[in-house]
């Protein structure tokens, strides 16, 4: 696109224009996603609670409810409390939105369908998601309200704690696949669903739930939504916000939910690979067929991610909220040791090459999602077959031999 614009205008302007258009497109995705998830949340919550949820706006299922709400929020007065630090108060929602938006950059939607093919995507995603906390802290701090301050403080303590187990959980697929590139991790899980990393061994199965718990905590959802605990803190960090700024926090929250669910889908659930390899041959055929296969993969991926979000919604409307000390206890006493235990367990499983469900699928005997280093198995034979295995690491292993 930049090249196209560059024909008609100076390159700098062209790049800026391109960047703005891309940004607007991604923001559209975020916005539409948030609208959909807010509607879904209300609908699911309604069904869970024996009621209908929105029914009127936009037809039978209240399709347009969140759009109507959005318009309402747009027209609301933008209030800043007299005690607030006005600049920071105004900026905080954007600070919250930007990282969750940036995280979409590195999240692959299908093989190669990714905004920015980055080698350290997993790390980047976790890092960027951790930044979202700044918006919350700033909002809590700048609001000039004691309840907001409480929310900000809680959020700071909570997110810093939960980044540790979250990182540990994220590192397990990385180690199993020998790469931090999400595209590679996803591709390695091609084949039958037995090849998904969650079914790789008992430890990865366990660690997914640890990951999910920590992810819920890190995106500040119930039962870990301490920063906005309405029964204690009124609305926590966004108590003083109104209108569109208030809704930015929600767009950020729902987008982060999508991102962590997407990350879970790629890291544990085979990403864009369906449970049954229907599109594998199409993909191999290349050309238009590959695009169709990728499109199917993209739909597959989105379904998985949305399923994760729905799970979070379900949890939210079922469980009571934990107390702040219990949240930290959950993290430090349960999640961190469990993640560490699973880390050691999964790597040992890999090291000793213990059986994995994929071994029992006849067609897929060799295609197990994992790096199989010859030096680790003590054999010199070239048994590793996965396409994504880093050649460099193989090089490195030669040094040892």
């Amino acid at each position, binding site marked *: 696109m930049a090249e196209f614009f560059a024909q008609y205008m100076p390159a700098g302007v062209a790049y800026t224009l391109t960047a703005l258009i891309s940004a607007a497109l991604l923001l559209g995705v975020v916005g539409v996603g948030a609208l959909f998830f807010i509607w879904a949340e209300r609908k699911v*919550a309604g069904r*869970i*609670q*024996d*009621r209908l949820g929105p029914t009127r706006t936009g037809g039978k299922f209240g399709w347009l409810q969140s759009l109507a709400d959005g318009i309402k929020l747009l027209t609301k007065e933008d209030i800043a409390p007299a005690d607030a630090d006005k600049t920071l108060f105004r900026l905080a929602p954007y600070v919250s939105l930007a990282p969750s938006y940036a995280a979409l950059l590195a999240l692959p939607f299908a093989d190669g369908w990714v905004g920015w093919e980055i080698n350290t995507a997993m790390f980047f995603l976790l890092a960027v998601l951790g930044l979202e906390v700044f918006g919350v802290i700033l909002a809590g701090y700048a609001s000039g309200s*004691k*309840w907001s*301050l*409480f929310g900000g403080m*809680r959020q700071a303590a909570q997110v810093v704690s939960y980044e540790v187990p979250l990182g540990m959980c994220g590192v397990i697929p990385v180690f199993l696949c020998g790469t931090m590139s999400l595209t590679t991790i996803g591709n390695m899980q091609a084949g039958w669903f037995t090849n998904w990393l969650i079914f790789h061994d008992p430890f990865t199965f366990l660690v997914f739930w640890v990951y999910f718990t920590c992810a819920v905590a890190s995106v500040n959802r*119930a*039962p870990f*939504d*301490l920063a906005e*605990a*309405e*029964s*204690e*803190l*009124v609305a926590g960090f966004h108590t003083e916000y109104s209108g569109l700024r208030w809704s930015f926090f929600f767009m950020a929250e729902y987008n982060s939910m999508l991102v962590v669910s997407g990350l879970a889908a790629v890291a544990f659930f085979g990403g864009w690979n369906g449970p049954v390899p229907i599109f594998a041959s199409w993909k191999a055929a290349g050309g238009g067929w590959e695009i169709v296969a990728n499109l199917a993969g993209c739909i597959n991926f989105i379904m998985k991610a949305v399923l994760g979000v729905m799970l979070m919604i379900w949890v939210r*409307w*079922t*469980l*009571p*909220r*934990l*107390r*702040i*000390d*219990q949240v930290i206890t959950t993290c430090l006493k349960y999640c961190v040791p469990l993640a560490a235990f699973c880390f050691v367990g999964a790597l040992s499983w890999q090291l000793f090459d213990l059986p994995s469900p994929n071994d029992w699928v006849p067609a897929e005997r060799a295609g197990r999602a994992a790096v199989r280093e010859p030096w680790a198995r003590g054999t010199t034979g070239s048994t590793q077959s996965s396409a994504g295995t880093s050649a460099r690491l193989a090089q490195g292993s030669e040094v040892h031999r």
Partner: protein
Amino acid sequence: MATANREQIIELDVRTDELLVNMGPQHPSTHGVLRLVLKTDGEIVTHVEPHIGYLHRCAEKIGENLTPRQWIPYTDRMDYLAAMNMNLGWSLCVEKLLQYELPEKARHLRVIIAELGRIASHLVGMGAYGLDLGTFSPFLYAFREREKILNLFEEACGARLTNSYITPGGATADLPPGWLEKCEAFLDQFEPVIAEYHALLTTNAIFIQRTAGIGVMSAEMAIDYGCTGPVLRGSGVDHDLRRDGEERYTEMYDGYAFEVIVQKDGHYPRDHDYPPVPPEAVLGDCWHRFYVRMLEVVQAIDIIRQGIEFYRSAEGDWGHPIKLNTKLPKGEVYLETECPRGQMGFYLVSDGSAIPWRTRARSSCFCNLSVTEELCRGCLLADVPAIVGSLDIVMGEIDR
């Protein structure tokens, strides 16, 4: 230069840094217009001071200007979640002054209605307690069932919330035909639903973590503060006015088989399949107060079933409301009844005219709330809604 700088130093002192925050009167978890002034040291609450009176409507003063029957709607608006039980307390108090003998049928009608009111009230208490702990769904499950009770009330008296049904001399009307069958159908449907509440709250691990061992109130403290109802029994005090009250009230429950819901020797009376008491729970904590309410609901179902049978076989009249301007005998009476939230007392002083010289309502929540200051001292911020919620207060009754 150093001295010049010193003038700009803002004095800070971390060790006495206490944050003074207002929880309420506009706060999502204070059950109406209650205002708690909290002094917090980080997340730890060092001091709580409840401020009440935001819903004060001078009911006692109004009572000095109305006849007892005219005051009935004002009792509705005290504990508006258990209006029937408020009506009952005042009616019994007036009848005590009049030495009125109630027909058999009216007695059973009152038992049925009062126990239904107890269920309806406990359902709100239970659901709202879930809200206090951050879960929304049980609240709606509770209200779904409560609505059915309110439907029954509506059918009996025409009103859902402020019923003014039970009145000195009986009730304003007999139960309509077919009502008993509907009531029985409701009970049959409702009884299994209770398991849902137990699954969502009572036995939920997070719920237990949030309530067990929190806000522990010893039996002595509960008695000393005049706490009554589930709050008192949650502390293990075997005291229920339906059994231990004065005759005017207990004779209403003559012939009914029920046990006082209180933990004895580590067990609650077991005539149903209740979930077990978790090992973390300490007698007198939030969990026990909640659990007592849950068990009282089951027990109320039993009592209503008995009441329906009694009512069916009862002979005679369902009672007649006293005349609006009945002259009250000179004297004074005090009567407490076991309302869902505790012992609701009415004190009536009469100088011989049709209008009481003084009416006084002894509010159960008023006493129950007075423990907050001591109960919340040193707890965490998130425990304040948990503790206040477990007292299950209704501001209308506290402020009157």
